[in-house]
């Protein structure tokens, strides 16, 4: 019987090696897999390259991972926020690298990795600092920049419900990067609020088919999720 359910957060992240590229879902705190990140901190893998839209908020989740010194490089679109002081300090101290990618190019690069696309031309960023050194092309009188797929060894995402095949549904804007990161990583680990019997999720409503999910771990239900 296929079952992707693992018993604990620690078991779920146990084989993430130092030096890995790890995608972490979430936009701000919505959809951020905080328990998996805490597990990753306990696990202790270092020199990680982290792909996330932001670079941590406050003193929780991704911010703590950075604070602990586990992150060598951030690939993100928006590191600077009112409560991103942990990243800010690490960056100013030269302790962390930053690859800044426009948010839509970040999403499309992740999607391209999952969909087997070798690269694509995007109008976003054309003529800007963020296109410097990149191939560009005029197509139908419009400028485009070439962007490459962004792969990862692991993706840590948060969903609302899962079944034992790893089918996932999300909740509201916590969906954000989860579905595309699930497609782009060799191993995708989803923390979910609820595990339901196979067949409970309507086939029309599944957002991430289980083919993209390798491990599912249940976390305590939150007030709003």
């Amino acid at each position, binding site marked *: 019987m296929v079952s992707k359910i693992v018993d604990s957060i620690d078991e779920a992240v146990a084989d993430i090696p130092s030096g890995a590229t790890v995608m972490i879902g979430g936009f701000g705190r919505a959809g951020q897999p905080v328990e998996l990140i805490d597990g990753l901190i306990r696990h202790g893998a270092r020199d990680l390259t982290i792909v996330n839209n932001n670079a941590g908020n406050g003193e929780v989740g991704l911010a703590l991972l950075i604070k602990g010194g586990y992150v060598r490089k951030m690939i993100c679109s928006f590191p*600077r926020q009112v409560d991103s002081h942990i990243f800010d300090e690490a960056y100013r101290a030269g302790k962390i690298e930053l690859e800044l990618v426009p948010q839509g190019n970040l999403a499309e690069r992740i999607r391209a990795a999952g969909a087997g696309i070798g690269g694509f031309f995007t109008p976003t960023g054309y003529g800007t600092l963020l296109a410097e050194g990149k191939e560009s092309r005029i197509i139908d009188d419009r400028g485009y920049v070439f962007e490459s797929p962004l792969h990862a060894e692991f993706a840590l995402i948060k969903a609302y419900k899962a079944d034992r095949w790893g089918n996932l549904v999300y909740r*509201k*804007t916590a969906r954000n990067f*989860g579905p595309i990161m699930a497609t782009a990583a060799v191993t995708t680990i989803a923390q979910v609020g609820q595990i339901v019997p196979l067949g409970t999720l309507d086939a029309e409503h599944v957002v991430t088919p289980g083919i993209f999910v390798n491990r599912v771990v249940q976390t305590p239900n939150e007030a709003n999720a």
Partner: protein
Amino acid sequence: MTTGSRESTPATSAPLTRTDMAQRVAADIPAGAYVNLGIGLPTSIANFLTLDQEVILHTENGMLGMGPEAHGAEIDLDLMNAGKISVTELAGASYFHHSDSFGMMRGGHLDIAVLGAFQVSVNGDLANWHTGVPGSIPAVGGAMDLAVGAKKIFVMMELTTKSGQSKLVESLSYPVTGLRCVTRIYTEVATFDLVPDTGISVTKLFGSATVASLRELTALPIIDATHQTSRQTPTEG
């Protein structure tokens, strides 16, 4: 359009407040339009959209049909806008993931995006993501995607910097966000339209601003279109 030097009389007696500006932008958004309101000043436009207008708001973190800010028991940690403020969901809303959301933007499906700006050039280049100050931590978010994607880009900004420099310029000195993308600029003293191959025209004046004073401030050959205003923006507030 007239390009003569005739002085226009100011349309109102005082420069607009930020609230006035938001109200004017809201009134110019056509009923049923799909609109993204940028983080910061533009977000306040939502407060002046009427139910009748049924403007459908997009937020790049994966939602169409975003409702007003959430308060008290309405607050749901899974439901926020791109500025990470808790919002609500309207009937008719839909959720989608980030690739679909930015495909929607990049693919030209949004009617209007209203953005803040550090600078706008006369040919519509936009600078709003990076001050270029050494040592500052860069952050771009969805700014470049919105700039290239929406059918119309409205900018909402004060016309001058704190030190009195015009933010409407011949060419950008700040790092560019998107090229030739801005179509209209709302400021506290005037509203401008930017038309490719035609140039920049002023369609409304507020406070003591005149076409001449704006030409002097910006050093740009601004066309006076203040008399066409009533035909151009029939829904003015």
